[in-house]
């Protein structure tokens, strides 16, 4: 069963009356997401991630294409889909002088909750988002992390079948991000919720997502699991070395070495096949009298795939 079935979706933003400016945001994107999956949308700024998410969430109308969300044609009957989906974004904002229970109460009523059911749901979500100690604080006095937790709580008011998360951990402290990621994973595990998220954090995508799509220039360039993407991009293996002094040889001139970079005191050589190139690499360094303090061989991480695709 598909939670999302979008075909050939295109969107161009137009501005200006006299000097007409056109900015293509999506160029014929097709996307299918199975129910109960966590799907990640990655891509550089301006790639079209938020535009695609907004179209799927019925906040934006595409210029062309077909969009089915939870089996509903959202271009014809968006109100039917809205009952069953919700969205939270990392930069969400609410009315400045309302408090968390009032904000949740307001949006809860928009989803048809009232009376004891509404009070119960609001209290549940306040507990889940750990907002209880801050329930009397006006929204504009909450910290960024609390605001984001409130945004996530708001997006769960209608217990959605499909949840869109636009950069949910943007600007959060690492410990808060970790807790939020665990909670997102539990939503899928315990409630079978389908989640589509955009993120700039590769680790987050790798940790959470069953499947990932890379968007750039309004097009999906690649999609698959994190491992499939690494294989698709054919980045090879990474040989990471730490020396006692800067290496006197240009490692990138050795056969089979695709790229050399430095990160946190490590020299990382991306090679086509580690098993084939490592002996030669070690032989050359040994001949130059370089002492190798540490050595690791690993597959490239998602960040390297991202950099390769965004290039």
């Amino acid at each position, binding site marked *: 069963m598909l939670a999302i079935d979008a075909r050939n979706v295109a969107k161009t933003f137009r501005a200006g009356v006299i000097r007409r400016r056109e900015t293509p945001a999506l160029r014929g994107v097709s996307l299918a997401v199975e129910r109960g999956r966590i799907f990640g949308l990655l891509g550089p700024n301006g790639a079209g991630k938020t535009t695609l998410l907004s179209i799927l969430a019925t906040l934006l109308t595409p210029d062309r294409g077909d969009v089915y969300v939870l089996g509903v044609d959202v271009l014809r009957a968006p109100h039917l889909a809205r009952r069953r989906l919700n*969205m939270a974004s990392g930069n969400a904002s609410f009315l400045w002088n*309302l408090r968390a229970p009032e904000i949740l109460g307001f949006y809860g009523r928009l989803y*048809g909750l009232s009376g004891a059911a509404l009070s119960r749901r609001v209290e549940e979500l306040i507990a889940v988002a750990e907002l209880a100690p801050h329930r009397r604080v006006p929204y504009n006095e909450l910290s960024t992390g609390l605001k984001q937790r409130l945004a996530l709580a708001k997006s769960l008011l209608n217990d959605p079948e499909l949840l869109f998360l636009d950069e949910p951990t943007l600007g959060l402290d690492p410990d808060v991000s970790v807790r939020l990621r665990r909670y997102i994973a539990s939503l899928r595990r315990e409630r079978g919720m389908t989640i589509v998220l955009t993120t700039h954090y590769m680790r987050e995508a790798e940790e959470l997502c069953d499947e990932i799509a890379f968007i750039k220039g309004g097009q999906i360039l690649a999609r698959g699991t994190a491992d499939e993407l690494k294989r698709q991009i054919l980045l090879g293996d990474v040989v990471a070395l730490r020396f006692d002094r800067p290496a006197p040889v240009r490692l990138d001139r050795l056969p089979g070495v695709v790229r050399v970079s430095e990160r946190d005191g490590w020299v990382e050589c991306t090679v086509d096949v580690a098993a084939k190139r490592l002996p030669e690499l070690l032989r050359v360094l040994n001949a130059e009298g370089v002492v190798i303090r540490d050595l690791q061989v690993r597959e490239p991480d998602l960040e390297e795939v991202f950099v390769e695709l965004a290039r």
Partner: protein
Amino acid sequence: MMSWRREAVAAWAFALRNLQMASRNVFLLFELLFWPVLGVVQIGLMGRFLTLKPEDALFILIGQMAFSIVSTCQLDVAYSVLYDYWSKSLKHHFLAPIGIRHLTVGSWVVGILRGLLVFVMTAALAWWAFRLNPLAAGIGPVLLLLTGCFLTAWIVGIFVCSLLMLFGGRAETSAWASINLVLALAGIYYPLSTLPGWAAAMGAAIPITYFLEAYRSHFGFAVESAAPLTTGFALAIAYIGLAHLTLHASVNRARRTGLLLKMSE
């Protein structure tokens, strides 16, 4: 199928939110207290200085009171979009399964309450300070005048919301400016016949014109139209439908152009 309970709950959400915001915003006190009170005091003192007959002073005073009531009430309707525009939270409304009607009805209910408060306060002040009794026509005519004021406020407020959805922040001032123009054309301090032909024609298309005319007739002023109340109600109903259609179309356009998202960033 439409559930009346669900309809009422969604409208109540907007009403309650406007009340919560109003209770925490000191500037909203000015809307309720400062301008309406100042208006009555100015009219009362002007009447004394010009030694106006009580019915002439009442003619102007009723216009001033209607102005305060309509302004206060229409602002509440406009706030249903303005609050979210200011706090950049507009997209959350339109992500939820609600209709335009919930937003306009809920905020209008609070507008009516605040408008009633303005009415009671200004009427009491006019009597206490200047011995002018704007309620002399009786409860029925007063209720009809108030109905006309609230219907006009609803219409103007919804059109202001439409402008905001069409033009974003550039239309923000329309929330305060538009009502001045509408009421100036509606013969708020003068009969419609004193306006130039083109302006009188525009005034004749505004519902409050007829409700004011009907109410003032109880103080001995001539009625210029054949059936003012029927005309006023007919126009109001037509404009309410048109205003809702316009707002609906404006929201759809904002979804198409991306303005809805821009106003939430």
